[in-house]
């Protein structure tokens, strides 16, 4: 018990916690992020309707405006879309897909980028040159272009039905591959600095396996910047996913993400049914903004020069 309270106390007094407590913007961002994440995570339990259960849909409720307008209905807080689906519920289910794809692709980028960065930095030589030239080439393309390329190739290579089943994994792969360079370059830079330090040399002298040195000694000392990049990358990945889905090449419409919802709603904007596209858009902005603010705070808090 006392160990726990001691740990809590230490955490509370830690630099990070201190800077967190003293930044109201960050607290607000964290709360919003928490709200978005829990809304998405617990959607099947907390959403007012299940928009993907066809039997509960009522087409005659289609195009109901938000509840506070004249023709609104109390049971549809943010109105309904063309098929009578509750917009709030579709947003919650959509955010699930968006966040899932975002987090999974960040994890993928992170593992790929950190491994390649460690290898390049620690081993050096031709491998280093090769990895870094590939990174340079990839950096000269916008990430969205690379994601589009991978998605397009998958679409052409896989039969249609298989592709629909695998669409989300393809998307994770596409966004993940397009984002590894940043991690690799950062980790390589830090590794180059760390590998000449005495503790690494000592480990080498006593004959530890290079892999063990990389993972046990170098890696823990380069995690700070990686964490910052990853947080901000979550926001970027969500936006990339939304962009791809908006262009119609992301997730299939049967599992709509926020981007898909915005695209579908876009068709109804001119004819006056603004809520179908505006609310998913607002949800996307809030989600990305709060994650970005958290990332910014983390970067500042972990940067000794800004203290």
């Amino acid at each position, binding site marked *: 018990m006392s160990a726990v309270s001691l740990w809590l106390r230490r955490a509370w007094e830690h630099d990070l916690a201190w800077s967190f407590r003293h930044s109201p913007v960050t607290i607000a961002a964290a709360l919003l992020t928490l709200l978005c994440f829990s809304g998405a995570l617990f959607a099947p339990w907390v959403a007012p309707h299940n928009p993907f259960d066809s039997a509960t849909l009522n087409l005659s409720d289609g*195009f109901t405006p938000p509840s506070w307008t004249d023709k609104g209905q109390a049971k549809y807080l943010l109105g309904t879309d063309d098929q009578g689906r509750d917009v709030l519920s579709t947003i919650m289910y959509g955010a699930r897909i968006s966040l899932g794809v975002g987090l999974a692709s960040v994890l993928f980028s992170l593992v790929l980028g950190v491994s390649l960065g460690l290898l390049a930095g620690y081993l050096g030589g031709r491998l280093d040159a090769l990895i870094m030239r590939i990174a340079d080439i990839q950096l000269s393309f916008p990430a969205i272009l690379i994601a589009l390329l991978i998605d397009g190739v998958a679409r052409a290579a896989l039969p249609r039905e298989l592709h629909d089943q695998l669409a989300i994994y393809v998307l994770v792969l596409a966004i993940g591959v397009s984002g590894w360079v940043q991690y690799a370059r950062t980790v390589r830079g830090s590794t180059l600095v760390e590998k000449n330090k005495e503790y690494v040399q000592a480990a080498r002298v006593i004959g530890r396996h290079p892999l063990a040195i990389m993972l046990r000694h170098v890696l823990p000392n380069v995690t700070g910047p990686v964490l910052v990049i990853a947080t901000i990358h979550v926001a970027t990945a969500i936006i990339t996913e939304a962009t791809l889905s908006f262009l119609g090449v992301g997730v299939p419409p049967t599992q709509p993400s926020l981007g898909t919802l915005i695209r579908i709603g876009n068709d109804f904007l*001119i004819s006056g049914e603004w809520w179908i596209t505006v609310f998913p858009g607002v949800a996307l902005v809030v989600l990305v903004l709060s994650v970005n603010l958290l990332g910014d705070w983390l970067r500042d808090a972990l940067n000794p020069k800004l203290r």
Partner: protein
Amino acid sequence: MKLRHLLAAALLAFSATSQAATLRWGAQNDILTLDPHSQNHATTSAILQHTYEGLTRYSKTYGVEPCLATAWQQISPTQLRFTLRKGVKFHDGSPFTADDVVFSYTRVLQPQGTMQIYVSGVKEVKKVDDHTVDFLLSGPNPVLLRNIADFRIMSKSWSEKHKSQNVQDYKAREETYSSRNANGTGPYILKLWEPDKRTVFAANPNWWGKLEGNVTEIIYTPIKADATRIAALLSGDVDLVTDLPVQDVTRLRGEAKLKVLDGHEVRTIFIGMDQHSAELKYSSVKGKNPFKDMRVRKALNVAVDRETIKRVTMRGLSIPAAIMVAPGVHGHSSDIDKVAAADAAGARKLLAEAGYPNGFEFGLDCPNNRYVNDEEICQALVGMWARIGLKAKLNAQPMATFIAKIQNFDHDAYMLGWGVVNLDANYTLQSLVRTKTTGADGSFNLGRISDAKIDALVDAMKTELDAKKRDVMLREALVATRDNYYYVPLHHQLRPWAMKRNVTAVHNAVDRHEARYTRVD
């Protein structure tokens, strides 16, 4: 008193100046060619009818009326004598005679063209004298007069002079004099065709008929993109647009400068079901085909809430359908096209009676780029059927993939739309309901429906010349198709046009705007 005179004078002056008018007409597609025997393409036919005419033409109510022929007489069941209109001149001044009809008939039959269908069943066209021709038929043909409305007459002397006796081979990208120039007998003379840019016509002062409108010049502009076409109308660059994106119609109705002319298209949207396979391919029911049971098909029918689809999905732009042909098609009558209200409880009861109290799963194939809101309609159907326990697995795909899939019978149920080119219901019955053979019979009977009684009626109607008797048969066959629930008709598509307030046009169900009826004031 004085004021009234002044007003009257002003009005008079106004109406006098409004006599000659230019119509700037916009639509999505351009024509493919000016050769009237080359391409059976909806837009090309719709534009060329202003210049080229047939022996007959459709009236405003889709009946057949005389055009280049003034009268016709059935000499025997397989011989029809046409009296040609006298004093008609082609735009180049050459007179119209029986030789031109015979020449056009031999020309339209050339294999590189695609318009032979409009003279199908005609064995020979024989000149009797300068203003009389005989059509010799391979069998009695009650729809001949409708078909030949699209058999357009060219001048023999003009074609020979310009070495255009041969139909343009469009597929081989051939260009001929007649694919770049036009010389018909029609109400408008072609002045200019700049592909994908504009087509200009001027009124023909020597036309045998009389324009009902006041349009003396037509400028037709193809505008591919929906948004651009609507923007052109809103900004006043065009006076009339004959194909509107559905979601913009409401907004256009609210524009003070514009008016929307409502009208329908002779196209019926429906769901077909596999009623032939021993077992459905994508269904949870194994060992039998539930769609062979009429009660199941009826359940699918009565579960559909057509009024709600009309109100929500189609935004009012459809006519709920009970039969397979639309108003305007010969054979349609509103007393057999009455839609009953949706009845989910009744549908569930029917399913229980058929032995599926908990429903079942089946595949539903839909196009997603062909008909107005096609995918959205299918999604709505999935919901309506889910409420009676049927789980339709929707597979929405582009038309090209879709049509190949369903023509291979690789489907449980599918959505399709059917238009009627010759405006006769037997065309629909023969293509969609008649038992499938290798020819035109059952060419799109993709559920492989086979009903001996309807087959007999369809075959009899192909040659029945007694119009009254044939009408009774048409009605009987349409009702039999409806009452056996061979299809799930959804609605007849509406196709509104939008125009400036000062334009008056006559709507057309086969999407053929005729400028001779149009006024610009």
